[in-house]
């Protein structure tokens, strides 16, 4: 049986891993590779590294960071988000060490590039990111460059239904970083019922995770800040979710991949 996933999220801004609160207030955490390495050792089901200043600054993907992470030899699937705008970006990100990529701005700008990425990399490698909010009974799709919200376009809904993108990363951007902040109505009212959803933003405890993972369309929860408050948090969450089809917590390597990578270079 296909397991529901717990995805560890590392948010990167100006080259540093940060805690983010609603994408407007940030606290530094340290080097991204250190956080990624911890998630790898603690048995996360996937690791999402999202570099949040790349699209806004039009600086393209952070290839240097992806290469650095690729050299760690992670044993956990790596998802990259941030600044993907061309087919060449996508191909290079995968070659440097990521397993899947997230597209966000492209969903507003150029769906034809999304189609090309799918044809080249396969739909399974593509995740669409939708920062959403729920107000007055309607779901708003946020454009973080223009800081405005609108309804999800019909064009995008058709693309989602076509299977060109394998999964959607639904972020509750208003409640991101807030304990128990995620608005469940975003799941209940999402317009494409067959879409496979990864839920992110304000997911802080196992009861909330359990409730979200009970939805048939929710394939994974992604957790950011709340993994930073204690060691081995992924394992503790997994232990608490044993009643669900979640892969068991794993406990293995204790050595530093970063030290090994440095020794090899």
């Amino acid at each position, binding site marked *: *049986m*296909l*397991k*529901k*996933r717990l995805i560890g999220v590392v948010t990167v801004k100006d080259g540093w891993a940060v805690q983010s609160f609603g994408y407007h207030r940030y606290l530094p955490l340290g080097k991204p590779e250190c956080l990624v390495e911890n998630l790898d050792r603690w*048995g996360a*089901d996937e690791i999402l590294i999202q570099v949040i200043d790349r699209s806004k600054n039009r600086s393209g993907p952070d290839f240097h960071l992806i290469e650095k992470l*690729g*050299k*760690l*030899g*992670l*044993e*956990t*699937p790596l998802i990259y988000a941030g600044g993907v705008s061309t087919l060449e970006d996508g*191909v290079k990100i*995968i*070659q*440097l*060490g*990521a*397993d*899947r990529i997230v597209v966000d701005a492209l969903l507003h700008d150029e769906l034809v590039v999304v189609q090309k990425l*799918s*044809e*080249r*990399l*396969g*739909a*399974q*490698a593509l995740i669409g990111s939708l920062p959403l909010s729920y107000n007055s009974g309607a779901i708003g799709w946020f454009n973080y460059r223009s800081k405005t919200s609108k309804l999800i376009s019909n064009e995008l809904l058709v693309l989602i239904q*076509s*299977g060109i993108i*394998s*999964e959607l990363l639904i972020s509750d951007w208003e409640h991101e970083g807030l304990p128990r902040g995620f608005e469940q109505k975003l799941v209940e009212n999402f317009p494409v019922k*067959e879409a*496979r959803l990864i839920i992110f933003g304000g997911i802080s405890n196992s009861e909330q995770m359990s409730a979200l993972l009970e939805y048939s369309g929710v*394939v*994974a929860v992604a957790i950011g800040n709340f993994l930073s408050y204690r060691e081995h948090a992924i394992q503790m969450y997994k232990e608490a979710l044993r009643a669900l089809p979640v*892969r068991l917590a*794993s406990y*293995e390597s204790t050595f530093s991949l970063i030290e090994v990578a440095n020794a090899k270079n």
Partner: protein
Amino acid sequence: MRACTVGIIDYGIGNLASVVHTLRDMGFRVIVSNKAADLDVANILMLPGVGAFPVAMSILHERGLVDYLLQQADLGRPLIGICLGMQLLVNASYEHKYTSGLGLIPGDILPFANHGGHIGWNTLVVMDENSPCMESNGEDFYFNHSFFYQGPSKYQVAITQHLMPFASIIQRDNVVGLQFHPEKSQLAGKILLRNLIKSLVDA
């Protein structure tokens, strides 16, 4: 197991770094190349891959690797395909358009119904208790694919359940296909790779 060199076929598609690191961590020598002269010294060949079938086959043809792989398989050199690399081993795929594969294992690659991609961790059920993969029976591995193998059951070493049972390991003689990513399956992946490579090289 005596010292073993794994030759990874570099055809410019997919994430080779993870496979290389995993194999080196396990103590294997690793060569990454698209040149026959380099790969010829390997005890076993590995064909990884992330991407779509038609593009991958097109690149294999462009780089002259199709003939090389067919020739090596014919000589009995062990070959392991991973994910897309497994799918390339069979007769053909219907991804985007009908495209012929390497034809080393009879069967075709078909889409899951209703865009039902299979992404995440799922359980391996090994069908043959004499298989070197038996130690991995019941373990979870990381899958990331939208198409699956359909072919004679005699080539299906292990199956996994997603919408229906499908083959997660296929084998014909010294050619083996793994639909999942052992290099991204943490400890379970390393154990499976170790057992599989050992059995193929020592055979």
